[in-house]
């Protein structure tokens, strides 16, 4: 007996309400954008400069006490938060302290860090500083720029590749899905105020890769079916293609999600944000390759004169139709 996520030979209509799906996507994108404009992202020090200190102690952490200890140092914006994680030992109490970039200082001062460590030691004598990271404003500015360029480059490169392999309508459909995924991911990071750092950019690019992977598999089938069924309306061909690949789409999404969820639960708090971005990306990416990419393709229409057909296979393939 086999486990089947999707019943065999489905014939669901994915385009009965194209306006509804595009509408939902558009509304979500607008919501993401508004959230981004209103709240902005919770940038980590990679992108805004400053210092983060991760502390560990056997003694329990009192954030208020930490704050009081650091107040006399007048460091400006200091954020102190306790970190909880199922992977921690019982007597492992972890806190993250983020200190804003100090005015007028490009490089990071050892004095400030030493003063902070000294102050915290008076509160919790057994405290350990397991990581201390400082980024100057000059570098962080450049990192934002590089990150933005990387995302744009990736989308651009993919646009060109799909354009070369398929037709420009396919490329536009795929990129619409990508932009959709990236915007929704940024939106959820802004809405939930999860720390947005360099690793998240890596996650964004992976989402770009994953979403594409999905879209390309559907498109590949669309291309094949367009050659097979020259007279069928585009809508039917798209529907058929999505249905045929549906089982694979779900299988891959589920295996990927299984792996990611394991990492999310057990991988520790350091990369949890990163993994969260990818889980979200897989879900959004799967949705978008069906409902956004294909719908855009349907709206744009495709040129149907596929001159190079394979005469040897054509006969066989016509016999294959059973959907």
């Amino acid at each position, binding site marked *: 007996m086999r486990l089947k996520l999707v019943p065999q030979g489905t014939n669901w209509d994915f385009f009965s309400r194209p306006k509804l799906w595009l509408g939902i996507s558009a509304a979500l994108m607008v919501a993401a954008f508004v959230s981004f404009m209103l709240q902005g992202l919770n940038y980590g020090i990679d992108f805004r400069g400053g210092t983060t200190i991760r502390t560990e102690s056997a003694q329990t952490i009192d954030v208020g006490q930490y704050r009081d200890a650091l107040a006399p140092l007048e460091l400006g914006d200091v954020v102190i938060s306790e970190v909880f994680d199922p992977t921690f030992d019982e007597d492992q109490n972890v806190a993250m302290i983020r200190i804003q970039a100090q005015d007028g200082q490009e490089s990071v001062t050892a004095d400030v860090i030493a003063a902070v460590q000294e102050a915290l030691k008076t509160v919790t004598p057994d405290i350990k500083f397991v990581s201390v990271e400082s*980024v100057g404003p000059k570098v962080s500015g450049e990192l934002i720029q590089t990150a933005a360029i990387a995302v744009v480059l990736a989308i651009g490169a993919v646009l060109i590749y799909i354009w070369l392999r398929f037709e420009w309508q396919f490329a536009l459909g795929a990129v619409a899905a990508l932009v959709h995924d990236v915007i929704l991911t940024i939106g959820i990071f802004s809405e939930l105020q999860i720390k947005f750092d360099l690793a998240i950019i890596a996650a964004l690019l992976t989402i770009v890769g994953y979403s594409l992977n999905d879209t390309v598999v559907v498109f*590949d089938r669309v291309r*094949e079916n367009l050659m097979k069924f020259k007279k069928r309306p585009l809508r039917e061909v798209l529907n058929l293609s999505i249905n045929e690949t549906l089982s694979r789409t779900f299988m891959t999404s589920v295996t990927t999600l299984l792996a990611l969820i*394991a990492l999310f639960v057990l991988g520790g708090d350091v990369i949890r944000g990163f993994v969260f971005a990818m889980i979200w990306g897989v879900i959004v990416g799967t949705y978008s390759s069906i409902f956004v990419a294909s719908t855009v393709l349907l709206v744009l229409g495709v040129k149907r004169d596929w001159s190079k057909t394979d005469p040897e296979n054509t006969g066989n393939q016509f016999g294959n139709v059973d959907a």
Partner: protein
Amino acid sequence: MLQIDLWKRVLIWVLCAAGLVMALPNAFYTRVEGANDAVAAIEVRGETPELTEQAGQWPSFLPSSLVNLGLDLRGGAHLLAEVQVEDVYESRIKALWPDVRDVLRPERDTVGTIRRQPSPADELHVKISNPENMARAIEVVRGLAQPVVSVTSAGEQDLDVSAEGDTLIVTLSEAERRATDDRTVQQSLEIIRRRIDEVGTREPTIQRQGADRILIQVPGLGSAQELKDIIGTTAQLTFQPVVSRTSDENAEPGIGNEVLPSLDEEGLYYILEETPVVTGEELVDAQPAFDQNGRPAVNFRFNPSGARKFGDYTAENIGNPFAIVLDSEVISAPVIQSHIPGGSGIITGNFTVEESTNLAVLLRAGALPAGLNFLEERTIGPELGQDSIDAGKVATIVAFAAVLVFMGLSYGLFGLFANVALIINICLIFGLLSAIGGTLTLPGIAGIVLTVGMAVDANVLVFERIREELRTAKGPARAIELGYEKALSAIVDANITTFITAVILFAMGSGPVRGFAITLGLGILTSVFTAIFVTRLMIVIWFERRRPKTIEV
């Protein structure tokens, strides 16, 4: 029909076996690491019984390259430094004034009196009293310019000379600045490298980044501050005439003199002439040694011009003390006993053997040509790294198990084939990572877990296709063949697009993110290989043996 040439079969198995063997050392990480260290130590310091035993822990006929662990997993210090290249312009311009003065002096009849004016640090301003003959002054000063030593700006001069009213302005030309910048950064890089190598930590990364930056990563170091101390020690050595000794820190030294503390003796200060006789820049060599009383000391040797200056000075000042000054502290102030020709000498002081060795290193390495500005510093404690490794391991195993079970449930026997391929796949990733000396970071582990999830995709594509083909009842052999054939274009397109993003991520990213790009990219390559070749080969072999009339995928 379902045929794979024998040579292809052999090649596929050989590649898999090679991957497994290359990945093997990582399963015994600490043991192999210890053995590798011992082998390296034997090369440097010769054989000792303990080292030989340690080196024997891992047989030498097996590959011994390991996956490098990134700083976030191993713990250590990371610094991004900006070399303040402008420092060098300033000293160049300062050194220019005597030359400019010397060439303008014989022209006094035409250009009139010359006087240096206050100016920005990277410009030299000279006022002449006959501005109508400025053209002549410019011509003379231009004669000082030298061609720029650099490949890209051949034929250009190193100085720009211009005039503003009665003021002559000399600056370094754009081409010379670029050439100087490049030299300064190269030199700083070399010096930093030598200093860190001397401390002898494992696998430091010291790289130039962009025009004027240097990235330094040293695993296993306690803090970024410690790293700064190692590279920040300037070791400016000078030999200065001694005026007198005092115990008063605030003594008035007089014009052209300075007060410097003694290194060893608390409360003792020397008043020295500011202009050194010779500086450490003229040193060509320094070695740890012992003086005639058997105490640790440092031997040094000057270049010819330094030797001449040192020789002349010692000849003229027999019986006077002179001070050996290191980074504004007087190491010792011996009395000159005799003329010292030949330009070599010995520095004695209250050194331990270790100190004298360090001092020799610092003197040999020379002072950094320009200041460093630290833009980014990170310290990761080894505990945090270990926690991340542990968490990563558990997560990878669980992810792996979940995917294996799921695939087995969904595709039965074919799922098992895919699972074997997946295991080979992970080994191949580790094998390749070790072979290319790639670095595994925490996001890199995430990349592997993601690969575990996505690697089955190519197999899923094929299996789903085979299922479809089976429905049209063409017989199992034909269905398998068609399944592979038709799924190929989707597999290739889907993976190339993901690979493109991995390449961009690798090119634009740094540190941990780059580690992610590497594992993701390698994962794509190996998963396509295992899906298209390894799983297929397994299916074909199974099919040949059993010749089933029907198959269930």
